């Protein structure tokens, strides 16, 4: 059993866990912002896939990871524009449109990928890391936690920024009102539709960056299904967070570590049923939701289209 505690194992577990967790945080954060404004975004997975593909193409052609992440974000944002147009302005059902966007983006990126790369299957070089001085020298955990691509630290800054944003800015306040009482926002001179548009586009951008993170930093390539349900996990995390954004980080970390157990266990040649391990974080989340279920808080106007003259 000493193997379990070996440096190699723990380092691999942590570093893999962080790599898996970061995209989930991007996605969960985006979804939390969108939900707060009253739009349940089931298209999140589609936005991630679009981001993964676009980011992959951009990095492949430019060689820059950062450029790829940015282009991935833009791709996610473009997909989110469908959500904005149909759900925010045409009052279509958010759930149906979300599913359609996920299906559509998955299909389109798979077709484009096959048209361009089905013969060559190119891979990206391994992404560079940003080693934080001193901290990354800590034995065992140092490399896993503090020697990662800079996008890893960026997402934590974004979570903190979003918390400040909701607490201290006008747009943050408007987003909360748009999700709880859009008529009140309108009466106060705000614009619920524009506010929701901002929130959904932000969610699209973040999900796109998250998807690109998977392809560029996690997998190093794009294949159909590379996001593997990360968007759906992001939706679950946003729900778990119930307005407290650090919960997203905690939940994503938990799921990330359990996902990376697969590789880590292979590394030390131990054979425990990996599927059972991967069930654990979800079981834990269900238990948490069950216990704190009564406190669970969803915006009152979630999923309801806003129409000024219809009340």
């Amino acid at each position, binding site marked *: 059993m000493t193997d379990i505690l070996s440096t190699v194992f723990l380092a691999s577990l942590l570093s893999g866990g962080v790599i898996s967790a970061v995209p989930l945080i991007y996605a969960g954060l985006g979804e939390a912002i969108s939900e707060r404004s009253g739009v349940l975004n089931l298209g999140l997975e589609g936005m991630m896939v679009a981001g993964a593909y676009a980011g992959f193409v951009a990095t492949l052609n430019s060689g820059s990871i950062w450029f790829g992440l940015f282009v991935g974000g833009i791709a996610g944002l473009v997909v989110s524009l469908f959500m904005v147009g149909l759900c925010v302005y045409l009052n279509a*059902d958010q759930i149906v449109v979300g*599913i359609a966007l996920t299906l559509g983006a998955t299909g389109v990126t798979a077709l484009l990928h096959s048209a361009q790369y089905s013969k060559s299957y190119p891979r990206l070089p391994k992404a560079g890391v940003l080693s934080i001085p001193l901290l990354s020298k800590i034995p065992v955990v140092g490399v896993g936690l503090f020697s990662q691509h800079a996008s890893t630290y960026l997402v934590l800054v974004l979570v903190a920024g979003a918390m400040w944003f909701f607490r201290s800015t006008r747009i943050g306040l408007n987003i909360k009102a748009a999700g709880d009482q859009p008529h009140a926002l309108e009466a106060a001179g705000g614009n619920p539709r524009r506010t929701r548009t901002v929130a959904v586009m932000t969610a699209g951008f973040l999900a796109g960056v998250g998807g690109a993170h998977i392809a560029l930093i996690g997998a190093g390539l794009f294949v159909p299904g590379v996001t593997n349900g990360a968007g759906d996990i992001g939706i679950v995390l946003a729900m778990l967070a119930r307005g407290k954004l650090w919960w997203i980080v905690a939940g994503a970390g938990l799921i990330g570590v359990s996902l990376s157990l697969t590789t880590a266990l292979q590394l030390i040649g131990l054979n425990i049923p990996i599927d059972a391990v991967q069930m654990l974080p979800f079981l834990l989340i269900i238990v948490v939701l*069950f216990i704190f279920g009564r406190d669970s808080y969803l915006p009152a106007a979630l999923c309801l289209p806003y129409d000024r003259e219809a009340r």
Partner: protein
Amino acid sequence: MTVPLSPAPENDDLDHPRSDKAESRLKRSLTTISVSVLPVVAAIIVGGLLLLVLGRNPFLFYSNVISHGLIGSLGRQESLIRMAPLLLLAAGLMVAFPAGIWNLGGDGQFVLAGVVVAALGPQMAPYTNGWILFPVLFVVAFAVGAAWSIVPGIMKAWLGMNEIITTLMATFLGLRLSALLVKEFFADPSTTVPQTKVLPVKDRLPRIFGTRVNIGLVIGIVAILGVHYMMTRTAFGLRLRIVGMNPAAAVHAGMNMKALTMSIFLISSGLAGMAAAVQIVGVDGVVRAEWNPAFGFTIVPLVFLARFNGPAVIGFVGAFAVLQIGGEWASRQADLPNYFVVVLVALMLLFLAVSEYLQSRSVRAGER
């Protein structure tokens, strides 16, 4: 005003199927058709443009879809076989969606039930005949599917927890559990591939009149028509629809919301489980680890396009099966991955949203 794509459509047809005047009925049918068919046409056109962009000939592609999926005898039979599980899944959604319950856990319920059936079938088959085997497997599949929605159901009924999140999570869990079961408990020791034992072909569902199509298709159609009858004609169905249209009114009228919510979850998920039984006992005979055809997710749009109407669901599922089976072949011919059909369905949904918006606007304009 009408909220487009609402889970509770203002479908008078459900209340006065026979008593209305022929004229208004015709008008309504025409509207329904235009709302359902126009998106399909638009999607086919835009899909064709996408094929052009990819450098494929759209006419060739679509004619390949039709010629293989519908006209060719082999393909047509494949399409009919494929319809069976899709119909049962759709029947489950026809119970849940009008009641405002978003059971998106179909894939987890489906795969898990499939694994249990695939494990149990080959064990039982040597000792029984079809009269016992099939009913037992169907009941077990129903029970497994239903069991997998008990926790989301309780969380919805007693804690008011959003079922989209809980059923999605139940799907993650179900898929992992299924893989675990196949690899660790039900694996066939005689092969190295992680899969269950194979149900011998002779023990599978009987076929119809010497075709390759099994009676699963009949079961699926009966399920759709049964659910349609239940939703439109019975007290229980009316209660479910009221729960979907106005939960406060349901409480006011004295309905037992917890019991109704639970029964929606159980019936809907049970039917998803039966869908898996039809697929395993009728077609596959075996489950491999990581098996997930994702039927449950792709069927959602079709039920919407058909506006929860039974016969229309059969029509849309049939068309979808042709698209899937024909599309697989056409994609191979065109050297494309088998994702084009998914794109088509997504396009249909997006156009449906637009066409409903235009329709609601014209209704509003007409009132002024």
